[in-house]
């Protein structure tokens, strides 16, 4: 009888472990999925300054995607950088910027690279910047710092602005 009990114990051990084990992976995404172009500002007068300090004195910056009803930054105060998500369905993204009663439109040409991450996270779309142009009276010139946009934070573009 003790032998039978021992056999039952031995046989039941893994069944308990198996039933108690968590065998399904995460169904929620735990990978950083905030992908967009990081833009920093500088005064036009600072150009060429080796100790360039980001300009952070916008008292009211408004940013809205062209073709999008939603305002991304609405009269934002003390802005030193902005984060601009790019379109994943086309290779051209445009943003309208306004501050100090000046308006500008930033045109961003980019490639989209679709990367499957997991069933929990779906596909990420990474970007490579091709060119940037503007039309308006706020931005003086544009400097591309890093053309690659992935899911980690880095400054991609510096905008020199008139005041």
């Amino acid at each position, binding site marked *: 009888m003790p032998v039978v009990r021992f*056999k039952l114990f*031995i*046989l039941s*051990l*893994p*069944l308990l*472990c*198996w*039933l108690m*084990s968590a*065998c*399904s*992976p*995460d*169904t*929620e*995404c735990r990978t950083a999925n905030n*992908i*967009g172009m990081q833009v920093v500002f500088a005064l036009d007068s600072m150009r060429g300054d080796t100790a360039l300090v980001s300009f952070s004195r916008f008292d009211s910056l408004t940013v809205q*995607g062209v073709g*999008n009803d*939603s305002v*991304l930054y609405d009269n934002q105060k003390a802005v030193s950088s902005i984060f601009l*998500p*790019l*379109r*994943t*369905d086309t290779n051209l*993204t445009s943003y309208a910027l306004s501050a100090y009663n000046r308006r500008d439109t930033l045109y961003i040409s980019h490639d989209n*690279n*679709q*990367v*499957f*991450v*997991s*069933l*929990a*996270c*779906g*596909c990420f*779309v990474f970007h490579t910047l091709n060119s940037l142009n503007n039309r308006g009276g706020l931005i003086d010139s544009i400097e591309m710092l890093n053309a690659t946009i992935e899911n980690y934070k880095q400054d991609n573009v510096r905008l020199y602005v008139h005041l």
Partner: protein
Amino acid sequence: MFLLLPVAALALEHPDSVIYQGVNVKLDIANSIFEPARSFGKIQSYEAAVNVDLLHRYFPTAEIGYSQADLSAESGSFRGKGGFMRLGVDLSALRKSRGNNMLLVGIRLGTAVQGCSTRDVLLGNGYWGYYTVNFVNRVRADVWGEVTAGVQVQVHKDFHMGWYVRYKILFSRGAAGAVTAYYIPGFGYKDDSGFSFNYYLGFKI
């Protein structure tokens, strides 16, 4: 399976050999019965194993099976079905085993081929909007290795029961960004911790 054929042929030529001690057939019940119950029918997996008893110490083993899975996560759904096979060998860890009571350790090389579809995969961002893409009717092959440990207990004459615990390492993880299978027949979830269990009923021929 092909590795077992020459061994089985040699054994049949020499039925009185002390080397050949018989063939064990094992039917898995943990994954076949409990997995569909635990996953509410989303996963079905059936498998059986056959091994050749050599010297009552070495057991060249072939395991074959079939799985199908219909699963979903936060950003998509996966449906796949296919077959798998594991080849390897078990070693009786006890010098003198009584009857068919054994402590087994072994290794396996597993492979699976399945047809699968990954649908409604979310893509985009919160500002410009999301849309979905589908990757359908794909054939996916995967390869993995296993280290196994198990117990076999004789329950009646030639019938025995037992279990295996397996530690699995997936060799075919796929290139970064490639669409891989969420669930792999015979292996389990691609991103699983690596451990799995088998619980089986067996008989000796």
